[in-house]
């Protein structure tokens, strides 16, 4: 199950309109969608946002990848649903957090699946974030595939020592991840030290002003992309106060009578 998680955010260099949009414009766009997702709490509204995001993912030819990643996360979605149902006692109310989680994923994918990690690093720096922050962020992203590979290795090693991940009740299963998580944490710490050292010997110094070989340039297209999305967000937000799933259900009832 854990083996494909990294696929969720793995960038693939494709030639689609979305891949050519300036990352800053994309970042601003996903930001407004994230805000909208947090503000709205009606399933129908969330569904509309989802449709908008999915159609953009389709343009970026990232829909299949998103679906694949989603499949691996289905157990988590079910878990969110169950936990919320236990505390809220209503299926429709517990579907909201599930949908929100799904939307977060889709929105994040919209950015990460269509943005070159190098461009992402440039974006963070252009936002005037300190180098230590922007570099750690882009390095973290860069190391997701490496880490996934390592997870795979460790899972295989522990399976070969008789670990049965798919047996026992829920809590027993969680405990079975200890022999996988501990080695991963230890290896990650070791690697972070190695990476830090290799950065230092290659002259990375957060106190020196850096210049860039490639500079990001905002074009008309990038601005239009953001404005169109901003328009969509505003329309969905304004419409949300007039139409909700309850009013729709009431309307359906009304038309039956």
């Amino acid at each position: 199950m854990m083996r494909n998680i990294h696929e969720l955010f793995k960038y693939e260099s494709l030639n689609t309109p979305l891949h050519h949009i300036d990352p800053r414009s994309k970042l601003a766009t996903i930001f407004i969608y994230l805000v909208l997702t947090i503000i709205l709490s009606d399933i129908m509204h969330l569904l509309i946002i989802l449709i908008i995001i999915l159609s953009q993912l389709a343009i970026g030819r990232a829909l299949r990848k998103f679906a694949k990643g989603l499949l691996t996360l289905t157990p988590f979605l079910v878990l969110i649903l169950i936990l919320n149902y236990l505390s809220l006692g209503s299926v429709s109310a517990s579907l909201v957090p599930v949908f929100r989680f799904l939307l977060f994923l889709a929105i994040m994918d919209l950015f990460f699946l269509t943005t070159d990690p190098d461009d992402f690093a440039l974006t963070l720096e252009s936002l005037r974030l300190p180098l230590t922050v922007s570099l750690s962020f882009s390095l973290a992203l860069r190391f997701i595939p490496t880490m996934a590979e390592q997870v795979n290795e460790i899972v295989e090693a522990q399976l070969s020592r008789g670990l049965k991940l798919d047996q026992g009740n829920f809590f027993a299963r969680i405990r079975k991840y200890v022999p996988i998580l501990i080695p991963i944490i230890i290896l990650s710490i070791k690697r972070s030290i190695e990476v830090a050292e290799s950065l230092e010997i290659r002259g990375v110094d957060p106190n020196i002003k850096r210049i860039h070989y490639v500079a990001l340039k905002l074009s008309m297209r990038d601005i239009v992309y953001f404005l169109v999305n901003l328009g969509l967000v505003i329309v969905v937000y304004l419409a949300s106060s007039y139409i909700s799933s309850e009013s729709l259900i009431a309307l359906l009832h009304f038309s039956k009578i």
Partner: protein
Amino acid sequence: MIVVENLYFTYAPQGDYVLKNINLEIGEGELIAIMGDNGAGKTTLVKHFNGLLKPTLGRVYVDDVDTRDVPISELSRKVGMIFQYPEKMFFSERVWDEVAFALRNFGYDEASINRLVQKILNIFWLWKYRDSSPFILSGGEQRRLAIASVLVWNPKYVVMDEPTAGQDAVQREILLQIINMMVSQGKTVILVTHDVEFVAEIRPRVILMSNGEVVYDGEATRLFRNPGILESAGLTQPILFKLESRLRDQGLIEGGFNTIDEAAKKIISLLGDERL
């Protein structure tokens, strides 16, 4: 016996085959080295032996059991797999628990666990560390612990992936002893390696792989006298055999020598001749 029949394997559904038409029989008590350069498919092949990977096409049988029909945990009792850098998988607070982990997974009772762990820790000179953290051990000790934590359940087949990687000369010597011990116990030992010097010291049956195919299967000595095949698989001759071919090319010796001692004797006798 492990039997591989027309094995093809690909990681991605429409991807290229990383293993192509592999046919092998690995008998009981055999010592085997699977050799080849990076990406030849060595590790992918051995992962089929304990069911971590299932054939895309073809079959793999372990003692007449089709690996597709049984879970990894069941095959692992027969086929112990020691991965490259096995010390990466440690997670316990005590050496003892690290070794007992697999036995608990396989459902041994406490009495047997105590007996087996004590025995293997003694064999591997690790008894004094039983209550220490695995992480305070030296590199060589960690490697030994990792091997012990697999041999503890006495698997009939033992696969070691790059056992010499990152090990110094002393540890290699110890590794040789461990391998000899396993062979004398009648275990089938399968080494995955590109360390020609190490293989030259143990002279097992060599299965040489290149681009997912088996290009040679036979005696190590014969392979090492054939630099052509070795180079085509991205390997070079061990020093001893390089020396042998140089001397033969110069017409100084006929045939070859099998051990360093033999080589030394020949060279000394050659020197002796010159002095006369």
